[in-house]
């Protein structure tokens, strides 16, 4: 299959995808990284994105949906600008992860997997994010915030809200 003539993605990303599918013995091997990049650029994996990705890797839309539904980090609906992921696995739990999660719900006035009405924050309780040495930890988009207390979490969220972004390294 040649490169897509019409694409939803930016020229840079489209060019990246054109190359990615050539890197593996089978095109479909590029599926998961492609979905992650697409999600970062488009905000969510909507029907149009799924259709284009399916055609790029040469599988059916159903198969793309199967993969998306398997991985919790891939999603089909847009989330908040800042996606707050609170770890409550064992290390974080022992060091107060559940309290952090409760504080988030209280402060943002949303439940797990919900988005604030202004679209700024969304919240998700996640499995281990690999920051056990600095537990409890919270991941906002791709940024890690470690050794948090409910108070420092408050300050962090305020900072995101008022400054509308710390050193945002891009991506959602």
């Amino acid at each position: 299959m040649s490169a897509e003539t019409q694409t939803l993605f930016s020229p840079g990303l489209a060019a990246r995808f054109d190359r990615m599918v050539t890197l593996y013995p089978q095109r479909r091997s590029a599926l998961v990284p492609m979905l992650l990049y697409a999600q970062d650029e488009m905000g969510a994996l909507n029907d149009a994105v799924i259709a284009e990705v399916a055609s790029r890797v040469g599988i059916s839309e159903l198969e793309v949906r199967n993969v998306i539904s398997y991985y919790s980090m891939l999603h089909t609906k847009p989330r908040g600008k800042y996606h707050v992921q609170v770890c409550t696995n064992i290390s974080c739990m022992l060091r107060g992860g559940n309290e952090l999660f409760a504080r988030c719900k209280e402060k943002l006035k949303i439940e797990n997997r919900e988005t604030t009405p202004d679209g700024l924050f969304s919240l998700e309780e996640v499995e281990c994010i690999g920051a056990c040495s600095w537990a409890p930890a919270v991941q906002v988009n791709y940024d890690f915030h470690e050794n948090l207390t409910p108070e420092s979490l408050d300050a962090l969220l305020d900072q995101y809200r008022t400054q509308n972004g710390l050193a945002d390294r891009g991506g959602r």
Partner: protein
Amino acid sequence: MADVTFTVDGKKLTAPAGTLLIEACRAAGIAIPQFCYYPGLALQAACRMCLVRQEKVGKLQTACTTQVAEGQVFTTESPEIAQARKATVELVLGNHPLDCPVCDAGGECELQDMTFKYGAGVSLYTEAKQHREEQQWSPVVFFDRPRCILCYRCVRVCNEGMDVAALGVQSRGVTSVIAPNMGDHLECEECGNCIDICPVGALTSGTYRYKTRPWEMNHVSTICTHCADGCKTTLGVRSANYGAEIIRGDNRDRSGINGDFLCIKGRYAFDFANRPDRLTKPLLRDKDGQLKEATWEQALDRTAGRLRELRESRGGGAIGVIGSNRTTNEENYLLQKFARTVLGTNNIDHHRTADYAAFVRALGERGRGRSASLRETASAPAVLLLGNDPTQEHPLAAWNLRTDVRLNQARLYVVNHTPIKLERQATATLRIPQDGYGNAIRFLAGDDTALPADDAGRGFRDALRAEPSLLILFGSEYRGAGVARVIEFGLGLADARFACLGDYVNSRGAADMGLLPDLLPGYLPVSKPGGLVEEYGGALPQTPGMDLIQIFDAAARGDLAALYVVGSNPVLRYGIAPETLKNTFIVVQEMFLTETAQLADVVLPAANLYEKSGTVTNTFGDQQLVNKAGDLAGTRSDFEMIVRIATKMGADAKKLVPYGRGVRADMGQSRGAQSGEADRHAVWLAANNLEPKLSPLDPFAVLDEIERLVPGYEPQAGGRAELMAGNDIHLEPPSAPAASSADAGPARRDLVLPAADTLFTSGTLGRYSEKLNSVLEAYTTAARTTGRDGLSPVAAGESAGERDRRA
């Protein structure tokens, strides 16, 4: 691979190294339970039912993924294993309702069997079961999610077997669920293999669900009446006040030529047989021109009387006979014998869907033994497909080709003027112009000027010609001299075998049995009937009769006194204007009041292929047994009708159907009680250890005569036993006198009219199947409401899966 020896439950077993343990055990009669494992499909190892103990290995192993090696020792049954399997059943039952008494699969459910065997009816799980209402995914597929045990068989058969990929698994862990490709419904080939393969009652069939129980039906194996592959289908029938109702079609024991496979037609499109508008009383046209019900005797008397009168007043040359592609070999043979000996005419033809006569002639002596069985499509190392779209027209051949590519790494070469779905399995594809099929053969044979050849085209040719053996399948794009060129090209290769692809279950049989104006059974030319004159006991007309087109031309001229139509609808198929036939006495044997039947003077209600016995021959030349399954009071088989009409015309039934004891064979004696004319049939029966049949209405009496007289149908070693057991026997076409082209002549018109049927249509018969119509309708409506490309997958000439892939 080399054989290895290993021990299972104390028995020494031998199998090729690398064989899966579960298969090696099965071959040795040791059953290992499984849910997710299915022969021929990818390994899943999801269910953990096949756990066995392997010596010196710490944990229990899955037999479905263990490959046998020298010296291994296994235990397949022990208290430890039983406990493990019980735990697995309990886990599976964690979300599965215990509703066997109301479940559609009750009585033929693998989970039910396992629960009874290992006993986990009482569960330790106290969590609430995940429930969801059942969903209808298509006119034929229903899904009851709680019953699903996530064995993924349906997903694999749809992906690997069908290459449709309409089913997938969504989410993960305990929330995993089987999902259809269109969100809440399926767009697929509607084959129903997912339902058949489902070990529980999660996927159920739209035609069968909740109608009956498996033990309340009789199960009759017969041959599907639709396409020319001739799949074995097991019909579940139940007594009804009018006879026997067909409730289900499947391939229950996965035996026969098609193994696991059936398409929508074999599985669901039997419903025409149960339609309330079936004709059950003969109809006679009265003085006012209206069709009125009559008794069988009145109708047969009228038919025989008029035919006899017209034969005597206007001669056999003024009578035409049109046979069927869906009647048995015995009926076709009898029909041509009736036409030639009783009506005295060679004006006999049928709707030809492929040029079998040219195929047989082209094979001739050099091609002896080169005709391929359908089974070879699943095992040939390399296949050349010329024209045709097997996905639509030959679903079993397409399934076999996909299987062959998947499991045997076969190389498939496709030559077609339009994209077909099987190209996804093809090693190489050669796209040609629509009128370029003849040139394609010249090109493949080495003529570079025949096609605008590029490097890809030459690469295709080189790869093809380098194949050490090749199976060549060609569609009805090739006729007459075109067929000869294909055969000539193939015979020039190292090792080629051939098959000619036509449509409808017994198209091949109709040609083999001589429903042709110029050819007798076995493709003997009418000008050289040989021994048949003596066998048929009288003069046979020796000039070729009128073909189907000429018959209607004669009718238009007013030269056709009578037309006798068996199971065919030429008026619609050939667009015959009704006034053409206004001066012709027409007899039609039909199930329904078709366009042709509406013009008839006598309509005789016929039984269909599911309601009679006999044999049929598929397009590959594989002969199979047809068994009577359904029954509708008031109808009669075409066989019976032909015999009754003939005898009422004054013919000797014994000459038409060799039944009872004939005159004693003299065995060389010329005097005494044993003298007399030799009864060759009786001698033949004795020589073949067969009994004379006792009834003139027994089709097997005619089968005996076919085996005795028809070139190409000679009895084969064990053939009759194989046939009766429901197996296919491959028949080599005769290299008989017909092979000399002088007799048939190059000017012979092939008159092939491809049926162009798809997965969801089946000629006139298909129109009477509500299931096929509902599927067609679902696709056209869906296209309208969703604004997709506006055509059903059928109309677009491609499968739904393909469209889905492209969309």
